[in-house]
């Protein structure tokens, strides 16, 4: 049987879709891991990125840190954490959070730092406090760039969350590791195709959101006309 026939056979098998370890369950686990990791990473990276971006100094550190973090192999980090924390979800979640922080941090920092200084000074001149400037001037203007950072973090985490199955019995990566071990390549390819489709879906959702936020952050021409 060719690889594609094996994959098709895996997709139509009834075990694939119902019972323990079936696709719906693994998909939910995978989504839960991805969402949890992104939530944690955003909770850490967004405030720091916004703070440094608002001060407009210390950006060099962010760039260096983001670059250095990219050099850390996630598999190595996962292995060390797995040995330290034991089998379970703790190790992959920490490793994935470390993977997701740099793009979110870089997006938040560069988005905020790139807002026009003149606009920010104008807001200051009309009496807005610093926290008001961040909330109602810098954040809305920086939103497309910040979302861009979250978007690339999401793509990386969805694809890399498959490695969670190396130390834990969770996520779509289970099919990949089981398939690899038992040489059931139909299962392996089938599982990966689901991950790819999931990634493409999430990316399209971000694409739609991005289009909306970019439009709303630009001045509306029809609006000004009506006001005249």
């Amino acid at each position: 049987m060719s690889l594609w026939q094996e994959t098709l056979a895996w997709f139509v098998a009834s075990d694939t879709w119902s019972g323990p370890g079936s696709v719906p369950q693994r998909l939910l686990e995978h989504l839960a891991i991805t969402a949890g990791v992104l939530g944690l990473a955003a909770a850490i990276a967004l405030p720091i990125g916004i703070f440094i971006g608002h001060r407009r100094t210390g950006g060099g550190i962010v760039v260096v840190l983001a670059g250095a973090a990219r050099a850390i192999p996630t598999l190595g980090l996962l292995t060390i954490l797995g040995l330290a924390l034991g089998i379970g979800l703790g190790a992959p979640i920490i490793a994935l959070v470390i993977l997701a922080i740099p793009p979110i941090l870089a997006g938040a920092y560069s988005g905020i730092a790139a807002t026009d200084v003149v606009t920010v000074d104008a807001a200051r001149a009309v009496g807005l406090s610093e926290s008001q400037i961040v909330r109602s001037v810098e954040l809305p203007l920086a939103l497309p760039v910040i979302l861009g950072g979250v978007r690339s973090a999401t793509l990386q985490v969805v694809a890399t969350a498959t490695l969670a199955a190396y130390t834990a019995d969770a996520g779509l990566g289970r099919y990949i590791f089981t398939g690899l071990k038992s040489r059931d390549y139909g299962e392996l390819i089938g599982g990966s195709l689901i991950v790819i489709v999931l990634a493409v879906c999430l990316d399209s959702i971000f694409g739609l959101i991005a289009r909306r936020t970019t439009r709303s952050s630009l001045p509306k021409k029809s609006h000004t006309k009506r006001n005249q």
Partner: protein
Amino acid sequence: MKWLSQNVETVLSLTIAHLGLALPAIVLSLLIAVPIGRLAHGLRWLRNPTIAFVGVLYAIPSLPLFILIPSIFGTGLRSSATAIIVLTVYGVAILVRSAADAFAAVADSTLTSATAVGYSRWRIFWAVELPLAVPVLIAGLRVVAVSTVSLVTVASLVGISSLGTLFTDGFQRGIIAEVVAGLVVTVAIAVALDLLLAGLGRVLTPWTRHRREAAV
């Protein structure tokens, strides 16, 4: 440290194997991505579909590619050719976008001037566009180099030797020192390559230094 002193030879040979996979992949990515990026920049209708497509490439989990590539290209399941192709796919995915941006950053007026003094299209590409695209290209290539060096380690899961072998072996035998050694050497190689490329970029674009000095 004790583990490392007893296994220096293993680490060294794995480092060489690691570089043997990463370096060809980085060079291939550059050779493939620059023409695609130039085409995507030149033909406007091609730009967005191309960039969307390479974005999807990046979303593919790396592990399954190590099984898929042999079935497409007929390379051996555990051969270095497979690993190099997989790494090149990701390298191209990152670099095509940078390449398109790099060519877009070359000012139109510069190209028009080159045409005006009689440069052929071919010569404009080699003597004007490509050199001026170097800063952005190098920035993209540095990202590719660093992420490729770190991605090579995944190859160890399908049994292709690299520094990642220290991760899988260390995990199975419960030797933390072995995993740490693999991690440290991988990051060190990535940082070294990154600095090397940054230096190369500076050598290739002497005019940027000149401008900075003139500004001071």
